[in-house]
């Protein structure tokens, strides 16, 4: 995802709207289960771990480390797909941006960065952590 490329607009539904609304405020939200106290991703109303319907939105730290990554060299503009394991313990699919893909490594610390898509939400990406 180069800066010149258009920022995509995600498909949003009733259940995931709060996540995307919060991206406009540069917040990365997670669902937390009120019964088993575990986070899950992607966010849903039902806890996939203990099957409770008692889930609430909480703000994530936006920090984590690379679980794995792959740079698609055959793309018109090569980009890096990755799973980032957030400090809260769940892994999210994302792109690693603002970096030289050849310098990335598994377990490297990364932090969230948002890019407005002009449709009221912002796409969260991750970049190598500053510190």
């Amino acid at each position, binding site marked *: 995802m180069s800066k010149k490329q258009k920022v995509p607009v995600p*498909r949003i*539904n009733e259940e995931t709207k709060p996540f*995307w609304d919060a991206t406009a405020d540069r917040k990365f939200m997670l669902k937390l289960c009120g019964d088993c106290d575990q986070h899950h991703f*992607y966010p849903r109303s039902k806890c996939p771990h203990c099957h409770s319907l008692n889930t609430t939105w909480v703000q994530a730290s936006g920090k984590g480390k690379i*679980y794995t990554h*792959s740079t698609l060299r055959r793309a018109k503009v090569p980009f890096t797909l990755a799973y980032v394991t957030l400090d809260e313990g*769940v892994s999210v699919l994302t*792109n690693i941006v603002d970096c030289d893909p050849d310098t990335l490594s598994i377990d490297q610390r990364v932090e969230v960065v948002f890019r407005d898509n002009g449709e009221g939400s912002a796409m969260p990406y991750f970049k190598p952590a500053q510190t």
Partner: protein
Amino acid sequence: MLKGKAFIAGIFEHPTRYAPEKSLPQLHAEVAKGALDDAGLSFSDVDGYFCAGDAPGMGAINMAEYLGLGLRYTDSTETGGSSPVVHVGHAAAAIAAGKCNVALITLAGKPRSAGQATGTAPRTLGSAVPESGFEAPYGPTTSNMYGMAAMRHMHEYGTTSEQLAWVKVAASTHAQYNPNALLQDVVTVEEVVNSPMISDPLHRLDCCVITDGGGAVVVVSPEIAKSLHRSNVKVLGHAEAPKHLNGGHVDLTFTGARWSGPLAFKEAGITPADIDYASIYDSFTITVLETIEDLGFCEKGQGGRFVMDGNLISGIGKLPFNTDGGGLCNNHPANRGGVTKIIEAVRQLRGEAHEKVQVPNCELVLAHGTGGSIGTRMGSATLILGGEDA
């Protein structure tokens, strides 16, 4: 238990790898005819029909009409490339329950003539799948998803590109004897690791082919099997397991075979050490490596060492695999390798594989399918077959 309650009586792999002049239903019909001819049965004998998302229409209904079938059972379970492996199990269960006696399974597609960039173009699931907004915008494709699995496997277990390359070398060694294979040249480890990088760490020769064509399988009841003049193949065990991202507890170093494998072996009453030949789903070299570990042919993490030095080559190695050249060299019709996995396993049991790759005294075989993506969610299915006396 399904063991011994159903038999594979007919198989057919379409010889084409490029069929711009044929329609999709036509390919389904041609493979159906081929498998029924092979069994010594006709379309009027079919009372159960099984197909997946590669067949056009609402479930199995539109194709049942096109084929002119009179049915009392249909199943259109869709698990991507593993669908036909699932279908054999479902057909055996339906036959065991008395729901049908002659089950026809077809798979066909034309991604090659459609010019589809199967591995490197995003596949839009454009639908309301719940994960859509959290995945599609990041550009997941088949190759970068499998690339991520390979990258993690390398990180955790020290697997190397050279080890992955051995999977392709073995497939190509077999493919040289298959006149229908899309790629018939034997390749070396060096050629694989020096082929262009598609998505790190997977090179072009780590990826399967894109072909038109298809295949079909006919599963029948024991009574019908007895009436046919064909060496019948017995369904000994079958199991399926979906694997998904587990609420964000992601682990890409294993496949659903970890669950389907042991269940299938248990039903068959055998162990991995008993298997004479294995058809292992090979969308990419990493798919084979992880699946071999998950099925118990070696310890988790030892797949790289296991596949080296020709250990998958018939006549040389301990686990002869994909002796038709597999999806890596021979055929991957409709971007789905499930049916060709079953077909080559049946050929091996019947002693009908090419003489250069036929496993001597082949009595117990396995066919494993992986559908979807090992980078996200997949349908895994394991099938174990034996000869008439197994």
